[in-house]
């Protein structure tokens, strides 16, 4: 179905694997489009309750494939046509999205990871704001997400200095939920993703929506959104299940409804 992305669904988790390992999963127009389409497919699939984006081979994603770059290229148009729709598709996804950063995430590859809800890093992973080294600026939402995740000052340091951030440093900055040793990598990311997929994912969708909206809201607006969100969550089967499991002192079984 896709050529540059491997797409699999297992146990409620959609695995979206960037699959150009010989090019360190660098973005081409096709890869941009296929990532977008696979996110859209997972968003619409009722069986899917959590998404994982990861990379095949030793890199997560090395950013734009520079072989496609030439002097006549209109960089702005490439972003508008290929990157921005991908980032917007990801941003509007109501299900939790994990970036399983298995290796280097450079340039727009870093942007992709930043746009996800969680970042699990292998101990071999690193982030690199590579743009400045070729006289460009972070794009594909990078400068939108980065300061929200780590604050303005640190975002400035990373974006301007362009120094490699290893997994442990990323964890300290708040860019990683967890750093996982390579030998436990597949087991731990699978466990994390399947855990999310078995949570009350309807409530997670509301949390995502309200957290996003909080960046541009007054307290009054946020409080109203809390009220609407809680009304909705209060109507879910998962809420009923959670309460009755608590009363019956058993483990709840959530369906995401």
């Amino acid at each position, binding site marked *: 179905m896709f050529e540059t992305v491997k797409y699999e669904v297992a146990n409620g988790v959609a695995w979206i694997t960037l699959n150009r390992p010989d090019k360190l999963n660098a973005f081409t127009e096709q890869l941009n489009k296929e990532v977008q389409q696979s996110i859209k497919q997972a968003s619409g699939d009722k069986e899917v309750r959590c998404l994982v984006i990861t990379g095949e081979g030793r890199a997560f994603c090395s950013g734009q494939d520079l072989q496609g770059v030439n002097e006549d290229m209109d960089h702005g148009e490439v972003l508008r046509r290929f990157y921005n729709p991908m980032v917007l598709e990801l941003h509007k996804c109501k299900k939790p999205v994990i970036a399983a950063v298995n290796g280097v995430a450079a340039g727009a590859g870093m942007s992709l990871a930043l746009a996800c809800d969680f970042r699990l890093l292998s101990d071999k992973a690193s982030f690199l704001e590579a743009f400045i080294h070729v006289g460009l600026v972070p794009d594909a939402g990078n400068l939108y997400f980065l300061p929200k995740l780590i604050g303005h000052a640190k975002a400035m340091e990373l974006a301007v200095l362009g120094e490699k951030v290893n997994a442990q440093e990323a964890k300290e900055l708040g860019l990683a939920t967890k750093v996982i040793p390579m030998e436990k990598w597949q087991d731990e990311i699978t466990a994390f993703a399947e855990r999310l997929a078995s949570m009350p994912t309807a409530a997670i969708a*509301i949390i995502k*929506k309200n957290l996003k909206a909080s960046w541009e809201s007054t307290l009054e607006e946020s409080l109203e*959104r809390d009220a*609407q*969100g809680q*009304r*909705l969550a209060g*109507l879910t089967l998962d809420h009923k299940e959670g309460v009755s499991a608590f009363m019956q002192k058993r483990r709840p079984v959530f369906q995401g409804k």
Partner: protein
Amino acid sequence: MSNSYETIKVSQHGKLGLIALNRPKVLNAINRPMVSEILDAMEGFEADSSIKAIVLSGNGRAFAAGADIDEMANDQAIDLELRNQFKDWDRLAMIKKPIIGAVQGFALGGGFELALCCDLLYAADNAEFGFPEVNLGVMPGAGGTQRLTKLVGKTKALEWLFTGKRITAKEALQHGIVNQLIAEELLLEETMKAAEQIANQAPISIRLIKEAVLKAVDTSLKEGMEFERKNFYLLFSTEDQQEGMNAFIEKRKPQFKGK
């Protein structure tokens, strides 16, 4: 009021009359029978003294995604003139009870124009408005260029009408097209609550306020002020004015009767 509508669903909820557009398979595209059924239902509610406010909603994934293009693809100018295509729309604008719209999904073309006929609009976060007529080599014909311009001013109206581009729910809120954004799943529930609040106000006040505000949209300030004053004086002939002011003085809740 007929109970056998084909393109809408009509129901009463206490003091509220609800009209839900009901051609979900075509995203509630508006055709001539639908407009005439909406008008018929509105006039029914207008005549029913137990109804104090009207709620107009979509159904399924959309409010209304434009007009039925097939219906008019082969129309000639004179066909349209002789049919007086928009006379039902003109009568919609004469409904005196408050109309509260609930927009989820698309409100495009004729659907957007219908939304603009409402007095208050509540919209879901996923609502998208727009006038795509320009892409078909025509333009809005049921008030779109006029009502949108009066709402948002010439600059944005021309931009949206020239390009046909979609207006997001957030932009619609920023530009005063809608009153409030609500989570999609709660849209009807919250709109009904808001409508009920209005339905519990003194009905003649609501009626004369609506009349005066609509007057303000297309008259001079001086004339509008005179009109407002007459309506203000008129309210002093109602029992509800007595009740409202007495209740205020006696520190109790007023019981309005609509008289």
